[in-house]
């Protein structure tokens, strides 16, 4: 029996169309756009001006405060302007626009592909390097890595869990990374283990990636304390709390963090970024993006510089199919729909999915028949039908009692509803209000 989390979960069609497509390096675009907020926390502050010449890997915006991180130029060239742009989330924010000239890298970055296994930095230096290099969680949440690697005072972490689940349908960037950069990922994991001071790491991978499981299991033999845990395919296994439960049986308390049960979770993409930052001194300036869709001519996994326009990715995948009705940034379950394609790839862009017009619109909403499928699907043990109505009717105190803030917005309830009710929409509404109310209580 493969391990998995016990409560709830769904199994949407996997549609991993690009699982066999090797990572393709996309050419450097002629212009990049770099929003100053590509992470959770305070936006970075630009340290360049119009006309400043920059090299690849140079800091162009500095972290503001602890919960923030640096942003580097992914190209060499001249700053064209600092302007307000619309980013992938649809919000406006400040961005640095750079016109590309050549590709001249900062000298301290080791651009060779030679594997460096020996870890020379101390734990503190590793964390500092992650901060300097602008590392964030690559799974899509984009929480600054240096904070996650800093175990809060009074807490103890005894193991690291690496998220290689990639439970979102369509996405294959982590899968390809594990296959093609397995040795680097494992060294990255060893580095994170050293930073955290733990001697155990478990890589959770779903059973629909048998090649990645066997490849990493083989490579892990050379690394002390790292094991691979195959998991049953079930969404949302990539959720931190679900993954911890599946791999260790530990249950993160409601409102708590993984470290409360002695665990830190990092994505495989982040482990790779840590490897590059620590061993090669390379900041986070590129990432792998899956560009896919059932009518897409040439779907694939692309290694692109951050700031590359999404249009360039779509072109690389053979252009936007004529039947496209919706483009999603991220996975189909938790990603955001793009209103326009003229937006840049950011640190959190894991995939671009083009859906045909036919499936891009929601089905007609029918009355709730109280089938309870949403409750069965909820991995947090919530009652989506109830908290959704509470959110809709504005009964926020009751919604708080029903643990609406435990919702991780995985979308399993809305997916599974036979009446096609927009459960998560109203849960989000309620959750946002409840969080605001709770914050006001604290400040009063």
């Amino acid at each position, binding site marked *: 029996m493969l391990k998995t989390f016990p409560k709830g979960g769904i199994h949407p069609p996997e549609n991993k169309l690009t699982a066999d497509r090797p990572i393709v390096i996309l050419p450097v675009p002629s212009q990049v756009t770099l929003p100053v907020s590509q992470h959770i926390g305070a936006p970075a502050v630009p340290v360049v001006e119009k006309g400043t010449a920059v090299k690849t890997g140079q800091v162009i915006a500095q972290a503001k405060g602890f919960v923030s991180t640096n942003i580097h130029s992914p190209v060499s060239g001249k700053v064209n302007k600092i302007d307000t742009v619309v980013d992938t989330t649809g919000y406006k924010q400040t961005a640095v626009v750079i016109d590309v000239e050549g590709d001249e890298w900062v000298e301290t970055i080791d651009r060779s592909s030679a594997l460096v296994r020996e870890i020379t930095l101390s734990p503190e230096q590793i964390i500092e390097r992650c901060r300097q290099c602008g590392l964030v969680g690559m799974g899509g949440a984009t929480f600054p890595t240096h904070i996650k690697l800093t175990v809060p005072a009074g807490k103890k972490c005894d193991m690291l869990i690496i998220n290689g689940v990639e439970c979102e349908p369509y996405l294959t960037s982590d899968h390809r990374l594990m296959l093609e950069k397995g040795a680097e990922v494992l060294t990255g994991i060893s580095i994170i283990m050293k930073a955290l001071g733990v001697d155990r790491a478990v890589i959770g991978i779903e059973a629909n990636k048998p090649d990645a499981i066997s490849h990493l299991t083989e490579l892990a033999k050379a690394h002390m304390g790292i094991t691979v845990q195959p998991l049953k395919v079930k969404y949302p296994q990539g959720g931190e709390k679900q993954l911890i439960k599946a791999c260790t049986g530990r249950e993160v308390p409601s409102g708590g963090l993984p470290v409360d049960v002695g665990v830190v979770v990092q994505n495989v993409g982040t482990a790779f970024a840590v490897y590059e930052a620590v061993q090669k001194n390379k900041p986070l300036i590129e990432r792998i993006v899956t560009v896919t869709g059932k009518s897409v001519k040439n779907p694939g996994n692309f290694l692109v510089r951050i700031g590359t326009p999404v249009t360039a990715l779509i072109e690389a995948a053979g252009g936007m199919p004529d039947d496209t009705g919706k483009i999603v940034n991220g996975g*189909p379950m938790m990603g955001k729909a793009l209103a326009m394609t003229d937006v840049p790839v950011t640190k959190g862009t894991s995939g671009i999915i083009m859906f045909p017009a036919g499936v891009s619109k929601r089905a007609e909403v029918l009355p709730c028949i109280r089938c309870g499928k949403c409750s069965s699907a909820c991995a947090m043990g919530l009652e989506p039908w109830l908290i959704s109505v509470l959110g809709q009717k504005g009964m926020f105190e009751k919604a708080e009692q029903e643990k609406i803030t435990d919702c991780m917005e995985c979308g399993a309830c809305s997916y599974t509803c036979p009446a096609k009710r927009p459960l998560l929409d109203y849960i989000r509404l309620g959750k946002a209000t409840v969080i605001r109310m709770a914050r006001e209580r604290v400040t009063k």
Partner: protein
Amino acid sequence: MSNILNVSPSPHQQSPETTRKLMFGVVIALAPALAASIWYFGLGAIIVTLVSVISCVAVEYLIQKFILKTKPSISDGSAVVTGLLLAFNVPSNLPVHIIIIGAIVSIGVAKMTFGGLGSNPFNPALVGRVFLLISFPVQMTSWPIPSGFNTGYTDAVTGATPLAIMSEGIKNGETVSALMEKVPSHMQLFYGYMGGSMGEVAAIALILGGLYLIWRKIISWHIPVTILLTVAAFTGILWAIDPTKYADPLFHLLTGGIMLGAIFMATDYVTSPMTAKGMVIYGIGIGVITVLIRTWGAYPEGVSFAILIMNAFVPLLNMYIKPKRFGKEVKHG
């Protein structure tokens, strides 16, 4: 880039399961029992089913179109299911006008007055059935004897149900073993060779339908299994105490509406609890009340009443029986 892009919050895909498919699944699951009814009761079963389904759908359509003035939603299939279930719960020789009255009560009173699909507290088909049982006690308890496919409609030969024979006999002081001679054998009961409501007789066909529902994940096992186990346990205890006064558990499981009730009536989404724990409590309640009515009540059969009584507790069960929240108890592995 001439495409106009749709923008909406996640998730961006929905499961292929729809209300209509679920309802159609129930219709498929009812098919074996319908076939068995036609096999045993002939023409009557066909007429009763057609009249019931057509009038349920028509009543819903007319109410939505002319009274509520909303878009008719008969295409969701729920009225078809109610119609089938109402037909299954009445004798196969029931006159047409009585069936139509049943449909009006089921859909008009029990469903649409509360706001239509999803809002009704009580199982519509059962409300219709119980209304008819109380209003037309003679017609509703003259059970045709299974006499094959060539049986006529209202001229069918009638007789008592095994449960009625048992209930009456025990009241008159006869022993169970003597009464067992007067009712069909357990094997005959299992295949459905007995008098009764047209859809309730063939246990084997109903179980087949139930397995299909569970396999399609339309229902979970909790409600039917708990009801059947409760009935078996309760009647088993009574039987163990005095086998001359109480019939054996298998007799109880194979007679009356218990199979139909446990598998198809009690599992109606709208009127049953939404958590597994709630379902188990609900199932135990139905099982206990059924046996209480069968053993000590005025009616020989009590499944309909038991389900309707427990329907009333469903809002309470949904309010107080919560799923176990993730992360409620901190565990260290």
